[in-house]
Each structure stands twice: as structure tokens, then as C-alpha cells.
């Protein structure tokens, strides 16, 4: 028997779980499902973000300069570009830096970069535009003006992604966030409901505690723990399929492109993150259920 407060809390929480296994299991499953889908969505989103950086920072553009441009010429182009009103920042990058960055970004595709005797890339200017209401128009006019400068080989902007593609991505992302939010909220509510049920099912027990002078926190803590236990078990249930997906992604996609980037490449970290989110959700649920009960 638990002779310390925490011993008591834990014994009561586990006992409560065993007393009402059905609602508790439903709660665990709902938490597991929401955590799985939400984290799947997050990982997918992160993967896309890694592959398509422009998608999420449409204010960036790259101006590739002609190879062998003199230092003075380069400086002149840079000054001109930096002087435009809609340019916020303009940085020069040598061919080596450009190559290094590509290597870093596409870490999985080393073989592409091997066998390069000499750097085929031109020097470039990395430009960030000022935020404006009509970014599309700003990018278009930037591209036009930049192309008309002497010494410029090519201009790459987020324009490369058509507005429709970006709109579609944005819609998908919005829907994903909405769905994930709905799932998380419903798992909070279902934990709250299960905890409330357990609480009123054990009225006899806490009425005795009120009489013997137990503080409200002592009375509520086992029910908090019972809720958190549901969240943690749900997280463990979600970890298995999610780990499967991460492994599969690691096989199919180049390493470093997918989950490894989130730091979820090893099972321990993934489980830790899931348990933290599961415990957080269920704590919110328990808090919702126990907010107004047992006040003197």
C-alpha cells in the first residue's frame, strides 16, 4: 500500500484504470489515433519544407551572375540590386559557397555531387525582398529588372512555383492543421470525459477524504494521474505505427531528408516527443474535468 502521497496517487490511478477499463481504453485509442495522425502530418510537412524551401519563403530570390565576371562588375551589380526599394537584403555568394549549400541541403544525394572535377556553378546574389501585400507582383518586377541588368545569367524566384501550386499547398496545409487541431481537441475532450466519469464513480471515496481533512489537491491528484496515464499509453500505442512510417521513409527517401531532420530519427526521441505531447494533452483533459470539483 502507498504510504507516501505519491504511492497513494499512483496506486489509486492504476486502480481506477483497472476498475473502468472500457472508457479508459477508448480514451487511450483516441489519443493514439490523434497523436499518430498529427505527428504524421507534421513529419510530412517538415519533409516538404526541407525539399522545397522556396515554398515557404516566397520573399527569397537568387540572381546567378555570369561566370568570370570581374570583381568591379560584380560589385556594381550587387550595389544596383541592393539599391532597389523592394530589396531588403542582398548577399554575395561565391560558387564554392553555393555548391556547399546545395550539398548541405541535399545531403542524401551525394553521388550527384561526386565526380565533379570543377565547380560548375556560377557566383550568385542571394536576395531577400521586403514583405509586401502583393508578393507575386513584387517578385515578377524584381525578376524583370534583374534580367535586364548586364552580367546576370539567370534569376530564380519562388515564381518557379506557380501560384496555383502554392495555393494548393496552402489549402492542404490549412486542412491538415484544421484536422490535426480537431483531433487533438477531441482527444482532450474524451480524456476529460473519462476522468469526470471516474471521479463521480468514486464519490464515496473522496467524500471520506473530505471528512478526514485531505486537501483538494490530494483528492484530485489520482484522477490527474489516471488521465495522464491514458495520454502516455496512447502515445506508446501511436509510437509503433509512427516508427514504422519513419523507418519506411528512411528506406525510400534519401537519408537526412525526412524524419532525421526533426531529430526523430531514433526511436527513443520519437517516443519521448510522443509521450510529452500525449501527457500534455491528457493533462489538459484532466484539468478540464477537475477544474471546478472539490472546492470547500
Amino acid at each position, binding site marked *: 500500500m502507498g504510504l*507516501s*502521497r505519491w504511492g497513494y496517487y499512483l496506486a489509486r490511478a492504476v486502480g481506477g484504470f483497472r476498475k473502468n477499463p472500457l472508457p479508459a481504453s477508448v480514451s487511450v485509442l483516441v489519443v493514439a489515433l490523434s497523436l499518430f495522425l498529427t505527428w504524421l502530418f507534421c513529419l510530412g510537412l517538415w519533409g516538404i519544407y526541407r525539399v522545397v524551401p522556396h515554398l515557404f519563403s516566397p520573399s527569397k530570390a537568387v540572381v546567378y551572375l555570369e561566370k568570370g565576371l570581374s570583381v568591379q562588375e560584380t560589385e556594381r551589380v550587387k550595389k544596383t540590386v541592393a539599391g532597389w526599394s523592394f530589396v531588403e537584403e542582398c548577399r554575395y555568394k561565391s560558387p564554392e559557397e553555393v555548391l556547399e549549400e546545395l550539398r548541405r541541403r541535399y545531403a542524401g544525394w551525394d553521388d550527384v555531387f561526386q565526380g565533379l572535377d570543377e565547380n560548375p556553378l556560377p557566383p550568385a546574389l542571394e536576395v531577400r525582398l521586403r514583405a509586401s501585400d502583393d508578393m507575386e507582383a513584387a517578385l515578377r518586377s524584381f525578376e524583370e529588372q534583374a534580367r535586364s541588368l548586364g552580367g546576370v545569367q539567370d534569376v530564380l524566384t519562388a515564381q518557379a512555383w506557380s501560384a496555383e501550386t502554392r495555393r494548393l499547398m496552402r489549402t492542404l496545409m490549412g486542412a491538415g492543421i484544421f484536422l490535426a487541431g480537431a483531433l487533438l481537441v477531441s482527444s482532450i475532450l474524451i480524456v476529460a470525459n473519462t476522468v469526470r466519469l471516474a471521479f463521480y464513480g468514486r464519490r464515496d471515496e473522496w467524500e*471520506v477524504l473530505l471528512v478526514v481533512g485531505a486537501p483538494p489537491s490530494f483528492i484530485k491528484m489520482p484522477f490527474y494521474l489516471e488521465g495522464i496515464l491514458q495520454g502516455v499509453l496512447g502515445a506508446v500505442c501511436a509510437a509503433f505505427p509512427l516508427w514504422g512510417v519513419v523507418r519506411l521513409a528512411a528506406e525510400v527517401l534519401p537519408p537526412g531528408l525526412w524524419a532525421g531532420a526533426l531529430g526523430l530519427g531514433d526511436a527513443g526521441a520519437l517516443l519521448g516527443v510522443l509521450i510529452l505531447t500525449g501527457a500534455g494533452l491528457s493533462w489538459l483533459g484532466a484539468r478540464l474535468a477537475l477544474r471546478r470539483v472539490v472546492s470547500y
Partner: protein
Amino acid sequence: MASLPLIQCFHVAKSYVAGEDILRDANLQILKGEFLFLMGPSGAGKSTFLKMLLGLEAPTRGHILVDGRNIHRLSRKDIPAYRRTVGMVFQDFKLLPRDSVAYNVALPLVAAGRPPGLVRSKVKALLQFVGLEKKAGTPCCRLSGGEQQRVALARAVANDPWILLADEPTGNLDPCASAVVMELMKAVHDRGTTVVVATHDPSLLEHIPEARRVHIHEGVFYEEAEASSTVCASALGGPGWD
């Protein structure tokens, strides 16, 4: 041995439904170390009064002071500590039936945050006191009524309360088990605890003949001497109390 007033009630009135007073203008002083029987017919308001002393119910009017403090003006966070200075025993025991005897007795100690070593030794001593050390591990639902009430008594005095309240403690017990429980209450009293026993059973009084006797009649407290001359024949009717 009794000296200072521990419990003071001034013009206490209580009604659950507006206009229907259960207590009307109840005045009472209970001294430190007294043993008091609170008598009255069913529905007189004995349980209600004990609940007010424990802070489970608030008086509609008037004040109840315990050790000089108005217990219905206590802040929320002081209430649990106050309740630990008052032990309560019920007619229906109110134990956790599936949990062991020792667990039930340990509960108020654990809730008060006492260290596990102290809880263990205290539980042992309490079970010895009520003669149940051999049943420490037995679930309470497997005990007889008399044994259950002894567990409840051990639980009530676990935190060494100043006051022990008992609401019909022998209502569900046969005479033999009642005698044991009353003996234990007397032992608790002998250790200096103020004891208030609410009952409508006059035979209990025989166990502690020297105890003070107060009657509730129509919402007012009467000492036995007063009560016998004023209300005995008319209202209390039935069996007398001596």
C-alpha cells in the same frame, strides 16, 4: 479537568429549506476535555449540528467558534487542516470497503503528508489500540460491523484530533459490539480528547454515566436538568433518558 471552552455556539440557526429551521437559536459551550452526549429524537438535527462542527455545513445564522476561531470564516486552504483537528465517526462507518484495515487507518495520515515511517508506526499503534492488529491486511468489507466501527474510530483519531465527533456510532451494532466501541471512545476521552456523541439511544448513556447530556428540542439545546423539567413529558415523549 475541563476548563476552557473549546466549542462555542452563539445563536446558531440552520435551515436547509427557507423558513424551516432545524436549529433555531442554539447556544452551547463545550469545554476542553468534556464528554458530551447530544440527544434528541430522529430529525432533531443532531447530525446537522455535527456536520456544522466539522465544517461540512454552514450555519444559516449565528457563529460557531472552535478554539476561538469562527470555523465558517476559515479560508479555503485552512479548512483541511481544521478538519484534521476534528475526527468523525459515522453510523455507517464510511470506510473504503475494498481496501485493507491498515490502508483505511493510514489514509488521514497520508493525506496530511506525514512521512511513511511515521505512518507505519502510527497505524500499528492505532490498530493495537482498537484491537485489530491481526486484521491489518483484511479488506474492510470482510469485517463485522463492530470491527468496522473500530477501524473507523482508529481512522478518526489518527491525526490526534482535539475533538472526536460520533454520529450514532453504535446505531448498527449489537449491544456487545456497542460496549466495545463505547469503551474505546472513553479511552480516547481519557487521553484528553473532547468527545461529542450524537445518539437517540438512552442505553448508551450507561456506559459513561458522568458524561454531560445535552438535548436538542425544537431547534434549541437544553442541558439535561433543564430538559427534564421543561420538555421531557411534552415533546420528547417515549423512553426517558435515565
